[in-house]
């Protein structure tokens, strides 16, 4: 009998099976995303050709179209212009167009950044304070309050779109960054409180007691001792909050038009000549994907690290 293998260790067959399932799942998940990235590098014609082209000549036309506004000009007019100075001008001219200015994409993209990171920070910060209080203090009606907080997630947020729309109009919060940050924070806060409370409960209260005896106030102890140890929970919560507010579409369509419009409602409206400009849309969504991806990769090491790394014996 082979005794070299531990019985806790899965057999090589189950390992292979697990790997196969994961690979198949990953490929299926990646198909739409890779199609999107491929589309962003196609030109307008190959993007909508039938049958779809898997092999194609890559072009940056989509990205150029995403960042610029263009207008079609006659060949005579184009000939009268001085030679194009940059590669993208040349690309645009080859389509018999000239660049008339930058598109709104960068503005929308930075709106998404401000609102996404702003509301994520606010949700995690307020959530951590609330979770700490729920975890440590004798809050009257604690269980009812926690249930009430959770109950705000029992209906789809868009169900309250009309009252919020009217409220925001009256308060002058419509189409403002602050308004969107508040809205996304409110939606995310219940999740943040619940997730973080679990992590706070895991941190022994002796740590902040020790800090208080060492001369720190409770708030100082919270920031210096509790928060660093809750980093795992904070990272996980921040990722969830970020993904929600970054991707949110319905409220963004409803409540923002100019100043505070985020990228999701903007990207699908990129219209070229004779319909939607698919390569530009592909380019927009590809770029839109990057921040969440980078954010998750940065925080990943916190997600994988243990909660308390051995300073307390259990």
């Amino acid at each position, binding site marked *: 009998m082979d005794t070299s293998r531990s019985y806790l260790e899965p057999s090589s067959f189950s390992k292979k099976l697990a790997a196969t399932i994961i690979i198949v799942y990953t490929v299926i998940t990646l198909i739409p995303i890779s199609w999107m990235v491929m589309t962003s590098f196609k030109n307008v014609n190959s993007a909508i050709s039938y049958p779809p082209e898997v092999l194609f000549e890559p072009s940056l036309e989509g990205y150029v179209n995403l960042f610029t506004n263009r207008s079609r000009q006659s060949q005579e007019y184009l000939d009268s212009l001085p030679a194009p100075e940059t590669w993208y001008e040349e690309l645009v001219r080859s389509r018999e167009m000239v660049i008339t200015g930058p598109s709104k994409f960068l503005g929308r993209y930075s709106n998404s950044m401000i609102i996404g990171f702003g509301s994520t920070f606010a949700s995690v910060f307020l959530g951590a304070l609330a979770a700490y209080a729920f975890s440590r203090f004798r809050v009257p009606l604690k269980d009812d309050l926690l249930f009430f907080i959770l109950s705000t997630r029992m209906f789809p947020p868009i169900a309250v779109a009309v009252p919020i729309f009217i409220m925001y109009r009256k308060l002058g919060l419509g189409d403002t960054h602050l308004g969107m940050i508040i809205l996304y924070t409110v939606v995310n806060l219940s999740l943040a409180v619940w997730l973080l409370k679990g992590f706070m409960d895991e941190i022994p209260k*002796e740590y902040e*007691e020790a800090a208080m*005896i*060492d*001369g720190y106030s409770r708030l100082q102890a919270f920031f210096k001792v509790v928060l660093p140890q809750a980093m795992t929970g904070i990272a996980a919560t921040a990722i969830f909050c970020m993904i929600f507010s970054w991707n949110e579409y319905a409220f963004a369509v409803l409540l923002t038009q100019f100043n505070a419009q985020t990228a999701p409602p903007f990207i699908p409206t990129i219209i070229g000549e004779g319909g939607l400009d698919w390569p530009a849309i592909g380019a927009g969504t590809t770029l839109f994907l990057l921040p969440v991806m980078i954010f998750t990769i940065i925080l990943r090491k916190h997600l994988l690290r243990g909660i*308390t*790394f*051995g*300073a307390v014996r259990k």
Partner: protein
Amino acid sequence: MSKIKIVNLQKSFGDFTAVKNSNLTINDKEFFVLLGPSGCGKTTTLRMIAGLELPTSGEIYLGDEEVGMLRASERDIAFVFQLFALYPHMNVKNNLSFPLKMQGYTRSEIKTRVEEAAKLLRIDHILNSNISSLSGGDRQRVALGRALVRRPKAFLMDEPLGTLDAEFRELMCLELKKLHIDIGATTVYVTHDQLEAMSLADRIAVMDGGEILQADEPSVIYNKPATKFVASFIGSPGMNFISIDQGISNEQSTLNIEGTNFNIPKQYEISKGKKNSFGIRPENLSLTNEGGLKGSVFGVEYLGSRKIVTVKTNFGEIKVKTDISTSVKINENVQVKPSNDNIIIFDGETDKSLKSEFMN
């Protein structure tokens, strides 16, 4: 360093009273142990002295200052937790300097003090290590170091050796005692382990059910317990009790049990009722052929230097510590009698020991 005094201290959690009307004075530079079974209120008392719990009523004096309602951070005491509570996201050096940073010391002062404490505790070689890489004993030393860098008015320790294994606990016990002698700090130490208490303490307070039953030197606690609980809790095995259905009168010096007269120390106190108990430690009993309580051998435990013989009598099981040379067989008929007059009569109504020539 200063003395600690608690006056009429009481703590209730809802309907439950954790500490009842307690009074204690802990002298300057004293190693004082709060001893008792779990749930007796010893930790709550310590946490009230530390400022981690606020008393329901009563006063706590640290030196001459009443600190009962002050925050922990305003009391200038140090606390060593059972689970050490070292900050896991800092290395040893930062753990040690953490209390000093709050008090506005300069960088060089902090460095000197940390190094001083590290040297004293022999942890100077691990100052840059992570907490997670330390052994239990080193963590214990770091926890002690964090307590003593600040030179606080008093050290409070909540079962600091509780999580160490037996061998290490003995070593740390010795180190703690030596450290206490070296720095002469007022120390309040909570434990449920009587051996730890006996070996460390200048004085011990035995607690049960939120009350302080007796506070005295270890030898007095052992030999002259104030209540039946103290007598049974201290000592391994604990004191033997024989119920007697007779009152005790003043000047009484013999007691008739099952038709045999036993000499007892001359009593100076009258018992309240007729149900009392006769207490004697196993080492003050001997096995005999006549003139004792009749019984049969129920069990023999061999302890190396001594034997413990359990004798089944009409009054329940009685444990006798005998010489190693004593040879008895299970079920053999023997008699048990006191070998000296270290005998205490406990009042059946109050559970307190009655005053006598021995218990004076």
